[in-house]
Every structure is written in structure tokens, then in C-alpha cells.
């Protein structure tokens, strides 16, 4: 069984030869700081390059993916032609505006860029029409993606995952508005929330149509996302989720279904268990990152309740075990995850969110080695 078959079998809720592994995605990859330490630990003498400027993460090279036993290969959109990454030095640090006009800063003390300017903070519904929106069909986004996806499809070796989340339409709305103002609006200015979400969704749908026309036929998985929960609970009520978010998720999913047979992966951090039935109802196939330390996100409980209807992708704790444990603790965490979630397939393992800069490289390596050691089917009785 090769990697592609392994992933597809797990995604179809069947047991492959071993639990599949992911690395290199939108938020399933690794900080450049930890990656460089990992390279040294593996005896590789080179430096990784930052791939995602915002999160300061890398897209690991092929030799490392092979060495770690990673079963996925990611297709990322290219950089838009109409925008250049050009950080400016300011008093506080390096400042960048992205193609949407949102401002981000990296101060000398921070490890990546953080939102610091929201251009629509004071906008009215009327202002939305006049805003200089980015072009979702910028030719830069599709540069090279068809060739790469086709090459991977011809090789038929790895599961092909399309990172076409475009920083998510939902999070884009609050980045443009400012998070606090956006959630105030959700209570007091609901028409504005509908208007801005409708606008960013419209652009997102055009983007999806653009990229999927290029490579939809080759994809095994496509990702969507948008954080809707915090550590303890969802950020909004179930009623608000169903009014503001769910109908728009539905529109994106309908478009995806028309353009590709790929499984739909939805990334949503936090304590999201109360929304899972709605995700299943929408036809979302895969939930990521399965933030197991958030409230109500116990691996065994999630598997028992929803394991036959949705695939779990992620699950290795980044809030405690990876940064503060020893490799043995990481191994135990992986064993626990496999024991609880791997029976019957339906599990792809990676860290909950990117492997952060404070994770010792030995722990990062232990994540992969532990899956190779404990993840074989039939599952070991001594798990």
C-alpha cells in the first residue's frame, strides 16, 4: 500500500496498513526555527526557507518528507502578481500589508507577523462597495499549480492536498474589520456582518473556481477553514453560527463539489465539538486540527460520537506535550491518539496546528517516529 492508498483508505473510514502522516500544509507544517533544528538533528546540512511569511513556517523539502514518512503532498497557490511581499522597517518592527490591505507587524520580540491594522475598522456597508478588493483570479495564484498537481497525480504515490483556503473567508472578514469590532457587530450591527461576509465569500468563491479549474481533477483533499471557537467554547452562539457562517460554508462546499471529487477538510481551532454535527450535515469530510486540550475535545469521546461520519486530521497536542514534554511524552500522546481514534481508520496524524518554534526538534521527530512505530494496522494490543 503506498501513501496515496493509505490516506484514501483512512479517509474512507477503513483501516489501511498504518495510520497516515501529514506535514507541510497550511497549518499542518512547522516553524522555520524548529525545522532548521530538525534538519541538524537529521544530519542534513542546509537551512529551510520561509514559505509562509505570515506564520514564518516552511514547506518541507521532498527528502525530509520521505525521511519522516509523510503521506501527503500539498499544492499551495502561488503569490499574486498584483502584490509583492515588501516589509517596511518601522519603529515597532517590520510592517507588511497583504493583498487585502490588512497590516501585519513582526516586532523584534515576536516569532511571526501579527495583525495590527484593519482597513475596514470604521467602514459602513456602503463603503464595502468602494473598497479596492484583491483580484481573486490573479494569474499568480495558479502559476505552476496544474503542473505540480498533474505530476503528483501521474506519480500516483502520495495523497494530493490543495491548500485553497486563501486565509479563509470567515477570518478575512474579521481581519478587515478588527476582531473585537467584528464580534461587537455580530451583536449590534448584524447587517454589516452579513454584508462583509457576503463580500469576502463572493471573492472566495471566485478564487475557488479559479484554482479548481486548474487542478481540481487531481486533488484528493481540499482544505477550507475558519476559526469559530476558543479554548473553552465557541466564539458565537449556535444560532449565530447557523445564521452567519453555515449557509456560507454550504455555498463554498456546493461549488467545491461541482469542481472536484476531493474530500473536504475543514480547519477550525478550539472547542468546536458543539458544531461538529452541523459540519457533518454540511458534508464536511475531515475535521482539523482536533485541538485535544480544548474543552470537550477529548479524542475518545469525539471518536465514539462522530468517528463514523467525519475523519479526524491532527490531534497531537501543541499546547502542552510538544513544547514542554520529552520525546517519551510525545510517544505516549501519539499512542493515546492512535488507541482512541485509529480503530476503523478515519485518522490522519499531525500536530494540532503548526509545530511551533518552542518545540524541541527531538519532540517533532518523535511525533513521526511514534506513528511509524505504533501506527501499524492491525493495531497493536499493547498500544
Amino acid at each position, binding site marked *: 500500500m503506498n501513501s496515496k492508498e493509505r490516506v484514501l483508505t483512512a479517509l474512507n473510514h477503513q483501516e489501511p496498513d498504518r495510520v497516515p502522516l501529514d506535514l507541510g500544509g497550511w497549518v499542518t507544517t512547522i516553524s522555520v526555527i524548529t525545522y532548521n533544528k530538525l534538519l541538524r538533528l537529521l544530519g542534513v546540512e542546509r537551512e529551510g526557507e520561509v514559505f509562509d511569511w505570515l506564520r514564518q513556517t516552511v514547506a518541507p523539502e521532498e527528502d525530509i518528507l520521505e525521511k519522516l514518512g509523510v503521506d501527503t503532498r500539498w499544492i499551495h497557490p502561488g503569490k499574486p502578481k498584483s502584490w509583492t511581499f515588501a516589509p517596511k522597517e518601522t519603529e515597532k518592527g517590520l510592517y507588511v500589508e497583504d493583498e487585502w490591505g490588512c497590516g501585519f*507587524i513582526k516586532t523584534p520580540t515576536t516569532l511571526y507577523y*501579527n495583525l495590527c491594522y484593519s482597513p475596514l475598522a470604521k467602514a459602513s456597508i456602503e463603503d464595502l462597495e468602494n473598497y479596492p478588493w484583491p483580484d481573486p483570479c490573479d494569474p499568480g495564484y495558479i502559476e505552476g499549480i496544474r503542473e505540480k498537481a498533474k505530476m503528483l497525480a501521474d506519480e500516483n504515490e502520495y495523497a494530493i492536498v490543495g491548500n485553497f483556503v486563501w486565509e479563509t473567508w470567515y477570518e478575512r472578514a474579521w481581519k478587515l474589520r478588527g476582531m473585537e469590532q467584528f464580534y*461587537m457587530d455580530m451583536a449590534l450591527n448584524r447587517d454589516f456582518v452579513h454584508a462583509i461576509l457576503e463580500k469576502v465569500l463572493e471573492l472566495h468563491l471566485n478564487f475557488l473556481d479559479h484554482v479548481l479549474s486548474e487542478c481540481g481533477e487531481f486533488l484528493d483533499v481540499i482544505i477550507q477553514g475558519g476559526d469559530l471557537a*476558543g*479554548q473553552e467554547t465557541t*466564539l*458565537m452562539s449556535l444560532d449565530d453560527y447557523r445564521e452567519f457562517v453555515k449557509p456560507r460554508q454550504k455555498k463554498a462546499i456546493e461549488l467545491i463539489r461541482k469542481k472536484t471529487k476531493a474530500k473536504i477538510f475543514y480547519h477550525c481551532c478550539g472547542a468546536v465539538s458543539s458544531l461538529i454535527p452541523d459540519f457533518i450535515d454540511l458534508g464536511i469530510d475531515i475535521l482539523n486540527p482536533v485541538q485535544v*486540550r480544548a474543552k470537550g475535545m477529548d479524542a475518545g469521546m469525539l471518536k465514539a460520537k462522530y468517528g463514523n461520519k467525519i475523519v479526524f486530521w491532527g490531534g497531537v497536542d501543541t*499546547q502542552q506535550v510538544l513544547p514542554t514534554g520529552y520525546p517519551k511524552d510525545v510517544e505516549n500522546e501519539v499512542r493515546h491518539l492512535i488507541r482512541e481514534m485509529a480503530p476503523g481508520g478515519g485518522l490522519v496524524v499531525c500536530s494540532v496546528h503548526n509545530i511551533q518554534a518552542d518545540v524541541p526538534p527531538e519532540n517533532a521527530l518523535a511525533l513521526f517516529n511514534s506513528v511509524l512505530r505504533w501506527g501499524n494496522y492491525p493495531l497493536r494490543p499493547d498500544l
Partner: protein
Amino acid sequence: MDNLRSSIKAGDSQKVEDNLKRLLERGEDAKDLLDNMIESLREVGDAFSKGEAFIPEMLIAAKAVQHGADFLNPELIKKKVPKIGKFMIATVEGDMHDVGKNLVAMMFRGNGFETIDLGVDVSPNMLIEAFDEYTPDIVGLSALLTTTMGAMKASIEALKTKFPHSKIIIGGAPITQEFADEIGADGYAPDANEAVNSARKLMGNKSNSLYPEVES
């Protein structure tokens, strides 16, 4: 008084002000009105802690009470009603996340604390300088990232070395009670509402009676 409460829950700052104006004219005591607003905010906070209210409801109620407290302020000063305490808050060095921190600050303001918000990415040295300047009863430290939990520890060490009697509460997504104990924090709160409760506990006798009358 019911109108005041419903306008707080609706997050309607103007109506809160109008109601306060009306109630003051009717001869209600400013301190009683403030206590009433705090009680309303606590109800929303408790619902939030129980997962029955969410960020939007919490934000608008806290902002409305803050507006109301600002409106009552001249009257409270006239009556020499002191603040319940002084609270200073910051997101620690290396961390730029501020939504949780802002919500905590709003809750403290709404609950009658004089609140000093130092912003995000605040170094231990900046905390020490600010502590020296403001002498807060309670310091709140926030972090969203595991990578900045170390900065939280360094901040507590720095503050406790220089000001051994300082009282520090911490919170943020990756923070646990165990971590708080380990790094010597005086309190931990999983949400903004609990942060206020934790501060009240730490202040002991000083917070037993809201707005104690000052001898004139």
C-alpha cells in the same frame, strides 16, 4: 432599574446613559446604580462561563457597563466613592494577541476597578516601571501562544523580585492552574469573568464591600 439591566444586556450604551440619568434624577444613589450595573454584568459573565453567552454578548454588555460607569464617575467622585481597586493588565512580551486581554480589561472596568491597560508585547521591564508608577492591587498577564508562556514566567519573576507583595493573575488559551502554580502566579482564570472573581478573592477584605464609603 429593569430598563437599566435590559439596556446593558442589549449593549445599548445610549440607553444605559439615559436610564442612569433618569434614575439619578429620581433620587437613586449613584453607588447603588453602579452596583446594579455590576450585578447585570456578572449575570452575563456567569452565563459566559457556563457557555450560555458568547463573545458578542459579553463584549457589548461590558462596553455598555463601561460607558455607564464613565457616566456615573463624576457623581461617584462627588460622593467620594473610591474605586474597588486598581488593576493593571498586559499581554506579555512576544505576544500580540489582545482580544482576550481587552475583554478582561473591560470586565474589570465594568466591575468598578480602575484599570490600566499596558497593551501587547509588554516586557518585564515595562511591567516593573508601570507597577512602580501605578501601584496596582492586581496585575493581570495574558498569553495566547505557548512560545510566550516563558515570557509570562520571566514577567512574574521580575515583578515578584522587585515587588514581593504584588498579586498577579494569569490567563490565556494555553494557561492552566498547574502552570500558574509552577511559575508562582497568585491566580489563574479561564475566562474574563473568572478573572474578576479571582481578583476579588485575592484582594480579600479590601473587596468585601463594594465601594466602601470614605470618611469625609
